[in-house]
């Protein structure tokens, strides 16, 4: 951002601006960190949700046993009896990051527990992410837009939802890696420096380590390259930014055990290779064009094109043959469900069963990105005004991420940074236009001085704003950024003729009102974000609260149940539950589980689903064959906790039925409706899940009224023959049952049978299920 202007004042102002922007960035970082601490303040410093517990457990292992043991870790406490090769199936980025952080802190004699480090990893990295967003946007549209985008990203609810303190998940670091990789790519593209290209590859490596979403990068960047080539924007900088990335990136990605040869074998990566070939051809063409006279070049083109077409055709044929030879065309299920939104629901119930893999609803867009949704189109327009390589990349990024987020709620997370960048650009451009309008219409100012006047005015404005409450940080930001923007404009102004500047002048009143409205918009956004961070996204889901007329209720049933398991069962006992609770059980109760949230083996999950949807005896047999000792079910009917196992039950039926066809979904539905009241089907009422959930439930209120489904249950009084209840938590949210051992004796005819049917006695004994 070196723009030679009037020598003295400009350098001074530049230095001042630099210091100010660093200071602002620092504030943004603190903001990003602290807005995510609501969960710690309101609840406590715990790990949230499901996956983070696994990550936490892995991190503990890493810090205890070192990296090589971690790499080769074969975990026998999960997916019993198959076990799981953790080292080869996990994205190690997050774990390694937290592990390194912990090690550094410990070597500095700051003795924090691993858990604390894990809890605060996500907020720290969200601060990094907003700085990365600043860098990226700065490359695209200048400092002002960068600062705005960073501020927006620091508190975008969508990102907060994944990175509050305690949400120790891959996405927490991956978003930072994603933005930073994009930044380095743009930087390499803008400078044409091999140094940045190398950094880019390394950053890409970190992203591959961190999250499966790296395929987004390796597809988006080739798309951008292709776009540039097609639109005739090829430059050798593009080559330098792209070609080393592909080679180094592929090599580095292959080093991550979980990716391995997938980096060259699966279709997700083929796009990059194809573009790699194309860019070489194009580079050659440009080179030849450079050294030849135009006339000769025409001749060469005819020759090269004819030969090149043949070569390209051959390569394409080979590629297509390779792709077609693999059964799913080389695409993984999740990628396929991205390309074809109906794919998962048709073929892979296990992917469709995860709520975060569902398409989002419109309100969730408003909830997660709020006003940014309206600013994005403006940002796109702003990007087109002078369309550069970088801004075209930003446009491509937003367009693709909008599509992906429309397919899966989870990918809203990818959209959020793009939306922030776009909105940052839009806001700063808007402010730029308005302040310029004001500046030019201030009376009695000469042609040259408006710049300074406007500037000082802005600075003054800054000071005013500064005195406002700090929570209105956004208000500060746009206005401060004005100054930056100003400079930016000046920068551009050297190129753009002054007259043109005049043309875009708006009426003074309109500008003032517009600025006021924009500030209001920003304030609204801030209020919404703070609300979202404080209320909506801070619940750890392991501890629940509810507010009623007589105060706050805390439901700590999960930890109660896991604590019970940890203290009252044998170390080698196996606990069966639906896979959602697998990670928590292994991490908190330290017991072996049958399935967990890493849903790599569909059959195994289907087995558990089948057991849950079978009648008691069949279920007992399935569980017994898996050496299960305890069965854990989550039941929300007493307190109205909606995401309990009864509500997930249809997925168990579907997944189970997908592998074991004797489980049929219609058997559990009455006229296509899922119900548990007296109208429910006998299959439903006899299923293990129903029985384990509602066993003794009628004793609570005498009626058996389920507060989630809002009905009275269908079958109220029944006994369990093959399971016995061993523990039910305070609010009945988790119920643990033990498998009864096979009976010691096999009974003969019972007396009842004798007295009832003494006349027609069959030679055999009464059929006893217990055999």
């Amino acid at each position, binding site marked *: 951002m070196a723009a030679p202007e009037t020598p003295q004042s400009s350098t001074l102002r530049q230095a001042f601006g630099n210091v100010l922007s660093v200071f602002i960035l620092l504030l943004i970082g603190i903001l990003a960190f602290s807005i995510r601490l609501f969960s710690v303040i309101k609840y406590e410093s715990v790990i949230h949700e499901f996956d983070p517990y696994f990550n936490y457990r892995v991190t503990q292992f890493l810090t205890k046993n070192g990296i090589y043991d971690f790499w080769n870790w074969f975990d026998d406490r999960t997916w019993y009896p198959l076990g799981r090769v953790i080292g080869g199936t996990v994205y190690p980025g997050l774990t390694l990051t937290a592990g390194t952080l912990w090690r550094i802190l410990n070597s500095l004699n700051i003795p924090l527990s691993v858990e604390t480090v894990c809890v605060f990893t996500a907020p720290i990295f969200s601060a990094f992410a907003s700085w990365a967003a600043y860098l990226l946007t700065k490359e695209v549209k200048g400092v002002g837009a960068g600062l705005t985008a960073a501020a927006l990203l620091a508190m975008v609810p969508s990102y907060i939802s994944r990175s509050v303190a305690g949400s120790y998940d891959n996405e927490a670091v991956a978003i930072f890696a994603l933005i930073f990789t994009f930044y380095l790519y743009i930087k390499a593209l803008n400078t044409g420096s091999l*140094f940045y290209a190398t950094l880019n590859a390394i950053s890409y490596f970190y992203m591959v380590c961190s999250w499966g979403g790296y395929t987004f990068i390796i597809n988006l960047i080739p798309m951008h390259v292709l776009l540039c080539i097609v639109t005739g924007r090829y*430059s050798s900088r593009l080559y330098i930014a792209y*070609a080393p990335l592909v*080679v*180094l990136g592929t090599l580095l990605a292959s080093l991550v055990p979980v990716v391995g040869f997938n980096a060259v074998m699966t279709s997700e990566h083929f796009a990059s290779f194809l573009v790699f070939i194309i860019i070489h051809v194009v*580079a050659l063409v440009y080179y030849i064009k450079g050294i*030849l006279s135009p006339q000769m070049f025409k001749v060469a083109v005819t020759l090269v094109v004819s030969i090149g077409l043949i070569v390209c055709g051959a390569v394409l044929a080979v590629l297509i043959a390779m792709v077609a030879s693999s059964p799913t065309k080389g695409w993984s299920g999740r990628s396929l469900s991205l390309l074809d939104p109906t794919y998962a629901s048709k073929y892979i119930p296990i992917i469709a069963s995860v709520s975060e893999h569902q398409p989002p609803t419109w309100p969730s867009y408003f909830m997660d990105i709020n006003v940014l949704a309206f600013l994005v189109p403006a940002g796109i327009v702003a990007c087109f005004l002078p369309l550069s390589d970088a801004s075209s990349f930003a446009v491509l990024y937003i367009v693709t991420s909008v599509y992906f987020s429309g397919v899966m709620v989870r990918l809203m997370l990818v959209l959020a940074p793009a939306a922030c960048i776009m909105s940052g650009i839009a806001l700063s451009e808007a402010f730029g236009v308005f302040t310029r309008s004001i500046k030019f219409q201030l009376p009695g100012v000469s042609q040259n001085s408006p710049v300074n006047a406007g500037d000082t005015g802005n600075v003054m404005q800054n000071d005013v704003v500064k005195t406002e409450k700090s929570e209105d940080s956004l208000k500060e930001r746009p206005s401060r950024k004005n100054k930056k923007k100003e400079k930016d404009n000046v920068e551009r102004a050297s190129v753009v003729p002054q007259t043109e500047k005049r043309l875009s002048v708006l009426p003074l009143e309109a500008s003032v009102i517009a600025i006021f409205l924009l500030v209001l918009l920003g304030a609204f956004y801030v209020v919404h974000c703070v609300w979202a961070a404080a209320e909506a996204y801070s619940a750890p889901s392991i501890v629940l609260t509810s507010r009623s007329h007589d105060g706050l209720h805390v439901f700590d049933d999960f930890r109660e149940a896991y604590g019970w398991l940890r203290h009252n069962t044998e170390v080698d006992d196996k606990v069966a539950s639906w896979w959602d609770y697998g990670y928590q059980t292994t991490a908190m109760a330290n017991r072996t589980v049958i399935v967990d949230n890493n849903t790599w083996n569909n059959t195994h999950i289907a087995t558990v689903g089948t057991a849950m949807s079978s009648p008691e005896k069949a279920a007992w047999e399935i569980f017994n064959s898996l050496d299960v000792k305890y069965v854990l079910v989550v039941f929300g009917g007493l307190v109205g906790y909606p995401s309990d196992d009864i509500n997930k039950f249809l997925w168990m039926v579907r997944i189970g039925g997908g592998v074991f066809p004797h489980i049929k979904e219609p058997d559990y539905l009455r006229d296509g409706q899922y119900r548990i009241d007296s109208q429910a089907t006998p299959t439903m009422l006899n299923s293990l899940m129903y029985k384990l959930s509602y066993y003794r439930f009628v004793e609570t209120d005498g009626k058996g009224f389920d507060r989630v489904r809002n009905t009275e249950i269908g079958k109220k009084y029944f006994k369990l023959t093959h399971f016995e209840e061993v523990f039910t938590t305070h609010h009945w949210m988790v119920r643990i049952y033990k498998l009864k051992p096979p009976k010691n004796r096999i009974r003969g005819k019972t007396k009842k049978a004798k007295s009832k049917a003494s006349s027609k006695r069959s030679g055999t004994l009464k059929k006893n299920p217990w055999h």
Partner: protein
Amino acid sequence: MGRSTTSKDAQALFHSLHSAYASTPTNLKIIDLYVMFAVVTAVIQVVYMAIVGSFPFNSFLSGVLSCVGTAVLAVCLRIQVNKENKEFKDLPPERAFADFVLCNLVLHLVIMNFLG
């Protein structure tokens, strides 16, 4: 008739290509040689793989990618140090070469890791 024109054109083309290339500086020619060496090695390996099969796939991958990587990096260097390339006027060749060395170090480190 068409055939003879194309062959004549091709001849002319090669001639002008040759003359144009002859005027490139020596250091660029060295780079070109280096690139050729890498590409040829890569092609040899692909042919070898086609004969013996892709069993130690990681070795094959690292072998080929090391060649491709070297070639690509050398091409990048060539682009940067090329005096005719106006985009990189403000980039001193020393800096370009330092970047190149760094990049290569990373590349070969990864290759060593991946080879076994």
